[in-house]
């Protein structure tokens, strides 16, 4: 069996196994085992991919499989991966693996919780392996919809409101996306002949410019909403604040990356002329949102809101890098997806664990936690340092690639925007240190914090996994750059050909 289909099959089988689980313990055991297998599978996939490339396979997509699903509607199930999707799959399996462990002690409806969580991840895996517009959209919807249940049932605070808001806004995105994808499909054979939904086939034809210019905003904004594109990002603070820990992790860590990935894979790759013509609008939006999100984070008091706004800033940088259309900046954007995915998952995991102990997320109600829960405190500081771009951790690599790549752009406009985006590194330092200073350092504010217990093993495992991933990317970025570099060439070439 194709290894890519296995990636979808394993979560499905895990869900099936959970259905037969007797109690809470079995449920989480099955989930942990399933997701560990998934982690190993993606490691094997990385290995297989690298060996295949080293053996000299120059195909754009590897391990391609194509099944006809509905002949009359031209629906196919087509999968295949390049370096970028391999990296995203590895990211996803790390996040879902750690997510299962942080949910170790979900109190109510544990079985349903894990089922929804894993179905969500099935959608994400499916999305990253598909190279067919239909398959892609299908998995996209599978990933988005369980979110409603996960927030609405297991969330906290204004959970119904947040769940509804998030789902409606993402559905609006889906609607735009559907128009865009169908439009692309309808024009996939401008010279006559059979229409196709296959990405690689569509990339070979030249869609007329006016059609591209019509479809580009639909696809880019459609995916952009999920990628927290300003001004369509407001579902994110409320959604994250209400979502349970593992869901926040998965959502900010992976689901928001679907937006960036889709914008890259579909909007930029299939509509390159329009991308070049219209990118300036979105560059302004994303460039500003980098700074705007950072400023927004400075003023928040709720830990999750701070992280949500920080995500707006960091995800803005992803789209910014993608729109810059230099290979370096795009590489940086892909690394930023992975880096931010891991970092933000780490933050949400830690926030969940701190909340579980102090029962508040308001930073000014806490203080001096470093003394009582040093493990979580140190992890938070490391996460913070990664977020503000300390060399040796992943954020630095991603940011520098984006900045250097963007500054190599021949247009003054792009370089000016780059300088504006760079100012965010100072503001990021401000909000990170503000949180660290208030939350962890200083005297202990509340006497009952003295009784807090530090992390247990199922809490340490995900934290350590995530920190190691951050450090690995930060110390040896060349491995990741090599993995994705080759796969970027077709896209960049296609975009530059137009100039």
């Amino acid at each position: 069996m194709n290894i890519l289909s296995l990636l979808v099959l394993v979560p499905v089988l895990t869900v099936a196994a959970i259905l037969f689980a007797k109690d809470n313990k079995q449920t989480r055991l099955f989930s942990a085992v399933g997701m560990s297998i998934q982690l190993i599978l993606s490691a094997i996939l990385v290995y297989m991919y690298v060996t295949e490339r080293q053996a000299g396979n120059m195909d754009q997509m590897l391990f391609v499989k194509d099944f006809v699903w509905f002949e009359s509607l031209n629906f196919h199930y087509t999968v295949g991966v390049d370096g970028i999707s391999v990296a995203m799959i590895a990211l996803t399996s790390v996040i879902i693996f750690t997510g299962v462990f942080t949910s170790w002690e979900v109190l109510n409806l544990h079985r349903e919780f894990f089922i929804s969580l894993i179905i969500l991840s099935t959608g994400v895996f499916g999305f990253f392996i598909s190279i067919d517009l239909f398959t892609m959209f299908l998995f996209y919807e599978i990933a988005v919809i369980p979110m409603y249940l996960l927030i609405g049932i297991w969330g906290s605070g204004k959970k119904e409101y947040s769940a509804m808001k998030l789902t409606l806004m993402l559905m609006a995105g889906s609607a735009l996306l559907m128009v865009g994808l169908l439009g692309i499909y309808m024009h996939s054979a401008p010279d006559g002949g059979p229409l196709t939904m296959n990405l690689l086939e569509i990339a070979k034809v030249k869609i007329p410019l006016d059609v591209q210019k019509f479809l580009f905003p639909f696809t880019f904004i459609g995916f952009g909403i999920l990628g927290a594109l300003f001004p369509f990002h407001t579902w994110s603070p409320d959604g994250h604040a209400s979502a349970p820990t593992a869901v926040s992790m998965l959502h900010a860590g992976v689901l928001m990356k679907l937006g960036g990935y889709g914008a890259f894979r579909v909007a930029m790759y299939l509509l390159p002329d329009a991308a070049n013509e219209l990118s300036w609008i979105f560059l302004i939006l994303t460039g500003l949102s980098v700074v705007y999100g950072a400023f927004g984070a400075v003023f928040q008091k709720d830990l999750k809101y701070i992280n949500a706004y920080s995500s707006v800033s960091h995800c803005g940088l992803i789209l910014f890098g993608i729109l810059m259309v230099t290979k370096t900046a795009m590489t940086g954007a892909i690394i930023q997806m992975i880096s931010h995915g891991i970092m933000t998952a780490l933050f949400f995991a830690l926030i969940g664990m701190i909340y579980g102990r102090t029962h508040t997320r308001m930073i000014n109600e806490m203080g001096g936690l470093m003394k009582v829960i040093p493990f979580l405190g140190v992890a938070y500081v490391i996460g913070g340092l990664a977020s503000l771009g300390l060399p040796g951790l992943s954020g630095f690599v991603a940011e520098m690639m984006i900045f250097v790549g963007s500054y190599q752009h021949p247009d003054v406009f792009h370089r000016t925007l780059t300088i504006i985006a760079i100012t965010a590194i100072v503001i990021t330092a401000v909000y990170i240190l503000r949180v660290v200073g208030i939350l962890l350092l200083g005297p202990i504010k509340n006497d009952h914090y003295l009784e807090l217990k530090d992390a247990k093993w199922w809490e340490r495992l995900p934290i350590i996994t995530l920190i190691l991933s951050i450090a690995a990317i930060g110390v040896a970025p060349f491995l990741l750059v090599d993995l994705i570099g080759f796969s970027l060439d077709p896209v960049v070439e296609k975009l530059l050909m137009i100039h």
Partner: protein
Amino acid sequence: MNFTYTILIPIIPFIIFLFIGLMNSKIKPSLAASLGTGGMLISFILSYYTAFLYFFKSVKVDGAYQKIIAFNAEWLHFTDKLHIDMGVLLDPISVMMLIVVSTISLMVHIYSIGYMKGDDGFNRFYSFLSLFSFSMFGLVVATNIFQMYVFWELVGVSSFLLIGYYYQKPSAVAASKKAFIVTRFADMFFLIGILVLSFVTDTFDFITLTDTTGSAITQGGSILFMGMSTMTWALILIFIGGAGKSAMFPVHIWLPDAMEGPTPVSALIHAATMVVAGVYLVARLFPIFEISAPDALMVVAYVGAFSSLFAAIIATTQFDIKRVLAYSTMSQIGYMITALGVSGYGGHEGVGYMASMFHLFTHAMFKALLFLGAGAVIHAVHTNLMTEMGGLRKYLPITHITFLLACLTIAGVPPFSGFFSKDEILVAAYHHDKVIYFIQMFVAGLTAFYMFRLYFRIFWNTEPHYHHTPHEAPFSMTFPLMFLAFAAVFSGFIPFEKLVTSDGLPLDLHTEWEVAIPAISVGLIGIIIAFVFYKKESSIPDKISQNLRFFYRWAFNKFYIDELYMFVTHKIIFNGVSRPIAWFDRHVVDGTMTGIGKATEFTAKSIKGFQSGQVQKYGFVFVSSAILLAIAFIFYWFY
């Protein structure tokens, strides 16, 4: 000659950092201390060995020292020309910096065994020290400007961690935050400067950048932006980064607060090594400054001169002994920066460059000594304020003598090392720019005055009532004092002009007495005034500060620069930008989204009444609509 082993100099502290950092509470403090110190001793020996080989055994071309790439590996690939490499570059200044960093770091490691004894976070302290040493070594041996930036950030974060070492103390937390954010702000300009520079020259590599005959240096001069060439802009931006680390006006405000860190940290990071990174950066890029952007070099000279004057004035008014030393550091770094600013490239023109590096070296020794001495004093009397000290010469004999030697050195009394290095700086200024020369001369007098004010207030003057009889520090603390005192006294005799020059060729220098004699006299006058004012309790200083009340208050409050920053950050940025953005996001952006939802809901509500399920109502609507339609049609057809 093979220098590949030099890679071990930074690697060893890094491994020790990881080990102590990961084991933290699982190992005994004594093990952490001996590992840290032992590792640093190896780096120390390797550094001296390297210096010996480099200066005396390596191959010179036409009598000039060569730049040697001992190791280089690509770390991050941007484009074919732009990539971050990690490597070791050996040239006179990097080898000299290896000596400075390893010496001071080793002394601080030894000193801290005594100073930090019994502290809760002893192991944490040593792991951070190792992290800092690793980063600082990485910075000085950088082969390209981006590697320097990488380690630049790392020293910044080590400094942050060490300033905030007493993390339960709010003032330490605030100081560490301030230090990080202010230097980060300056680093942003550094980064932009690197981007501009690389855009113009297409390289990060130091050797290519500073090749005086190469293409990099000649490019960028022609493109103008707001009246200055792109290269000038790039170098000014980079210099802002350097000014941030080196605490030059106006981004100096973090340095005095950084004294919240443990005193050995102040000696290592905030006196001898990290704060001279800015000087080192300018020296590293010196040929490109001098040849293709003389305007930028003038900015460097004046920023340095102004900062040294500014800091010296404040230093005369402060009472916290560590703060006096902090401002003194800022002032002395101003000297080094100015010296670079007034220097030319090559031959006798390059005396400023050589003087700057010379002063960097001697300053590292005597300023680290002063800080460690101050640490011994604080250790003995448990206060930072000189008003609560006095007469300590009886209790702390070794500290007293070494401190006196350091004061004489910084005051420029011959034949101590400070005299030689400062004299060369004054010579360079004298031949280049008289304004700067007079500023520097005045600062020399002020320096002698405030240092001896400090000395007399601590060791002479009236003795207050001490709760415990102060006692001399243990040997682990006095040994570094004696070692550094030796270095401070005699390092003036190192023939720097033969070893470290702008173009690698030896210089032929002799003391210029028309500069040296005024400098010595100014220093002596400063010492005499301090003697009269502070040797015994005296009312003169108070009278003077009364008479100059207005000016005194300004200087005492550090010219209100901190307040200005607070105003800008809190009132303008926090309340004027951040708060409105947060509000805008919640109410306007999100409000629009919610508004769309509300509008949908409202529409649904208002039309849902039509589907009531009541037959009478449907019948009424049906009949009345039919009648209305009929009327409409009738009117339409018949009129």
